[in-house]
């Protein structure tokens, strides 16, 4: 009985060895490509507090102070039409001497690049060709457009309300 068992195990092992076959594995390599959705996958509405804080950071490159934020909140909660009071806040920010903004010469020297930078700064994404074309054309056709005005336009558009 013991010999039969050992023989059985030996045959099983031998059969297993002979039944394994080498499997051909097909491998596909992928090149690294950055995949970004045109809308930057933004679907979450900023709260008004977040909006003000982010707007300040985008324009001044630093976090807003608690004191200034409290003053803005006091005024913000005093007006029922929030789009109206936020408009005032943004236009006030843009008129501050410490706002970080390209010069008129920088904008006019390379409008395409300026527009791309605006999309990255405010919308955290690259613009598509249509967006670059349209805005560059509009800047060219309208006399006296300043970087502040373009920044203002980006900040009051709907996409800036989302992250």
């Amino acid at each position, binding site marked *: 009985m013991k010999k039969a068992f050992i023989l059985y195990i030996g045959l099983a092992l031998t059969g297993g060895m002979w039944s394994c076959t080498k499997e051909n594995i097909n491998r596909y390599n992928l090149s690294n490509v950055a995949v970004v959705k045109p809308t930057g996958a933004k679907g979450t509405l900023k709260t008004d507090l977040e909006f003000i804080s982010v707007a300040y950071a985008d324009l001044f490159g630093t976090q807003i102070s608690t004191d200034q934020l409290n003053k803005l909140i006091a005024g913000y909660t005093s007006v029922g039409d929030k789009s109206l009071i936020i408009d005032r806040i943004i236009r006030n920010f843009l008129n501050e001497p410490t706002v970080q903004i390209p010069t008129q010469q920088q904008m006019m020297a390379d409008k395409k690049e300026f527009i791309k930078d605006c999309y990255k700064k405010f919308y955290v994404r690259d613009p598509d060709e249509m967006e670059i074309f349209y805005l560059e054309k509009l800047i060219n056709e309208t006399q006296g457009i300043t970087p502040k005005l373009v920044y203002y336009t980006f900040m009051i558009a*709907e996409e800036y309300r989302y992250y």
Partner: protein
Amino acid sequence: MNRRNFLRNSALTAAGVVAAPYILPTGRLFAASGSRLANHVVFCMFSGGVRILESVQKAEGNLMRGMLNGTEAISSDIGQGLTLFSPPNNQPVQNYGTLFKQFRFSDGPTGHFNGHTTAITGQNTDYNLSLRASPTFPTIFEYYRKHNSPAKSAINSWWISHSNNLYPILNYSSYDGYGPDYGANQLSPTNLFNWNVRDEFSNMISINATEQDFVKKASEFMNKTYKGGGLNVNSGIKNNSEDAAVIQAFMDQMFQQNYAGMHSDPWGTGYMNGDMYNVFFAEEVLKTIKPELLVVNMFGVDTAHSNFTDYCHKLHQADYAVAHLWKTIQSTPGLQNDTVLIVAPEIGRNSTPNSIIDQNGRGALDHTSDNAMAREMFCLVAGPSGVIQQNKVVDTLYGKSIDIVPTIAHILGFWPDIQGMVPGSPLYEAF
């Protein structure tokens, strides 16, 4: 009125209106079916809790000489430290209308926010009233804007609140078919037009017409190409661009006045408290924009919780503010002789004092729902002769807080459209 009855009555009213529609030049299908008695209504909520003893019953003398007839001497202890204002009008406001001396906040908890909500919605409240959410029934602002013909924009409807906390949410409700599209422009001016915050809102980049055109085209393009979100970005009240420009210009003017020191003593009284300033800014809105409906409140008398003497002083100051408001209305072209002013507290105060004693040995006053006097108030309806009965006093039990919304609707011509939606009725004794 409970929600089931409200829905039933809304349906019946809508059915009645549908039965006879006609097309207006504006394209609006449904017209307000009543006729107007005046083109402007100002509702001044003499709020913070006012007891009829110190007001119309003059238990401490006539503290309200701007509004009420009589020269009853002020109690000597109360009079100490009180800056007496000379009434700004030739006669007390009472003589220009009808005074209801036994008006009631008849149902619901006797809390400030309950009182405000009832006065602004025409509905009684209960202990489930949320202090964090919009009212569940339409406000007078929404009724006015929706049921008037032609339909009214928000610039015609204002809620000037003493505080930027809690009370602003009364500018519109969460009721289906109403809401922010019909809400009021809300402003808490004393929290905005002051030296502490003015720098954050008053130094804007200017945008000329050409630049405005660029902004319009560019932002319209961006909004069309943006496919994300899907949420209503402007979920609250929003003015159209023309009205927004008017309001921005008004704000610019207020900030300029503030910087120029013109807000330090605009009435020349030597002293102005928060109530007086709130009414002052309401007057500026009235003079500049001339809205058809404006509600403004005061709150200083709530100091009664801890100091009875100061409560009496605040009562005197609030009275002056109302009298000055009437003077402004009657001296502003476009409002003069075409405005009805309604004045009423939101609640009363208890008949018995609490345990806090002031410097004159007087007990302070709370406003609890189990005390009958906390529901007793006054109401004054002043307006042009021929519209409002002049120098009339109703000293019997008549009128409730829930009747203020119907009264405003009656004056502005849309009472038939909302009758059945609210439990009260107009204060016909005043007309």
